[in-house]
């Protein structure tokens, strides 16, 4: 059925209004970050963008965030994925329990988790390391609901029992079966999880700020206290970075599961 002009009118009005609301702050960021530092100056300048590389703490914070994201992904890969697969395969009785644990972060806001975990991190920073990279441990918990949902959908879709049986009959060991047969079928779910990991690590503020770790967001806030233009430029740059990353991941496969933020 062809949309009538009425439908079209509604459609463009809605897209126009909401789009304006969503794009205006982004445009403003660009505008603001290209304003000259001094009031009496006119015109446009890229000064705020040019000083980004020379900001103290910034490069190191980005670098650390990327390492943290890699560790989070690693933890997902060696701890969460095998456990979820294992439970689906061999211990269906534990399925509800594992699911329940994975969904806890949805019921416990980050600000509450920070209250509970502060003593533990105080201990870690005294006895083990003061590096913000240690935050990857708690971050991998925050990401659990998303990872679990993506994985469990993928596991339900692929008939892993048959795959596992086939691998077994052909003489594969348990490790081989997991790493060589099951994991590859979950590739999309894992890729998707990795994307969420990067977005989470780059965007997290609550926990790191309250535990006094200098992560990316904390550093941006710190820059903002002295120079607004630069902070705005960095923020916009990081949004564009994540957007490009997202568009670079193969469209067709990703879309369905990123949409699957849905829980319970």
């Amino acid at each position, binding site marked *: *059925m062809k*949309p009538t002009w009425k*439908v079209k009118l509604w*459609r463009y009005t*809605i*897209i126009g209004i909401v789009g304006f*609301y*969503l794009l205006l*702050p982004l445009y*403003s*960021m660009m*505008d*603001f970050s290209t304003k000259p530092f001094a009031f009496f100056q006119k015109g446009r300048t890229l000064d705020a963008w040019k000083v980004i590389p020379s900001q103290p703490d910034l490069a190191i914070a980005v670098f650390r965030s990327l390492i943290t994201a890699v560790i989070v992904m690693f933890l997902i890969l060696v701890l969460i994925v095998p456990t979820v697969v*294992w*439970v689906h*395969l*061999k*211990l*269906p009785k*534990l399925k509800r329990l*594992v699911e329940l*644990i994975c969904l806890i972060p*949805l019921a*416990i*806001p*980050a600000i*509450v*988790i920070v*209250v*509970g*975990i502060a003593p533990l991190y*105080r201990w870690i920073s005294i006895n083990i390391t003061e590096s913000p990279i240690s935050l990857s*441990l708690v971050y991998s918990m925050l990401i*659990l609901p998303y990872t679990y949902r993506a994985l469990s959908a993928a596991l*339900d879709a692929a008939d892993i*029992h*048959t795959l*596992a049986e086939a691998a*077994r*009959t052909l003489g594969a060991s348990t490790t081989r079966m997991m790493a060589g047969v099951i994991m590859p079928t979950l590739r999309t779910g894992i890729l998707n999880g990795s994307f969420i990991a990067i*977005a989470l690590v780059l*965007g997290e*503020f*609550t926990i790191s*700020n*309250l535990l006094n770790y200098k992560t990316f*967001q904390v550093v941006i806030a710190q820059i903002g206290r002295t120079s607004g233009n630069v902070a*705005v430029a960095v*923020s916009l740059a*990081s*949004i564009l970075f994540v*957007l490009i990353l*997202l*568009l670079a991941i193969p*469209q067709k496969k990703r*879309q369905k599961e990123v*949409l699957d*933020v*849905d829980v*319970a």
Partner: protein
Amino acid sequence: MASTQYQGTGTTTGGAGSRYWRKRSAYLGVVPFFIFTGIFLIYPTYSVITGAFRNEAGEFDTAKIDELLASPIVRKAFYNSLEISFKTAVLGAILGGLFAWALVSGKPGGRFYKITVAISSVLAQFGGVMLTFAFLATFGFNGVVSSIFVKLAPDSFLAQSSWLYTINGLAVVYTFFQIPLMVLVFLPTIENMKPQWREASDSLGGSPLEYWRSVGIPVLTPSFFGAMLLLFVNSFSAYATAATLVNLSDFLTPLQIGNALSSEVGNANPQTAKALSLAMVIVVIIVMALYAQIRRRVSRWESAR
């Protein structure tokens, strides 16, 4: 879903592969997971919930809770938190829901659709520091909108930036990440609506209005309210945006928790933070339970279709 359980075929490796031991050893595979989540997720949660009922000596005591319940500052912040979450959930759900419909009524899978979905998933995660800067660049001092209004209408509230720091101002800021989240959550539901329903309605002589009133809206309502509950929780738990924008520690409950925690680093008295956290958890759990209820109904209906 596959219900047949794989239990291993044959015992080619001999005695060690007896069924009893295989079953027992399977449990070893989940031990690391339980240890890890136990330390970093379950114990912290447990310590917050039980800690709210303990005094400094670790004995059972509800004095802290009583004290906070009686405090007008605490009650005001809690009320503010509920109010802003309610407002942004309703506003975000309506605008995001309409936007999702507008997207689907165009060309699903087209370029505009894909880019919008990608942007939405970035912006839904966009709360916090960066969002604060975006709105300061827009409405703050020397921001784009405010500098226009300073010239055109110096007396209007948009010429100043103080409105940003009120509840309604913060609600406008929060709605910025609520709309994209709504789009992401609601899009699959709208996409699931079959064109045949519309055709059936049309061929029976129904007007578009009648279609929406008796088919479209009833079908979408449960999912819509479910999504609204998610948005409520999303806004209720938000800390970073308010912390960087408002800077008033008594404005919202998350800010009070953050304040109680950071002013107490070093001395072991986080009772206030724990008791406030308990209040938050109770609200979130009630809302999520409602959400799960709605989801169950929706998925039962969807699988029956």
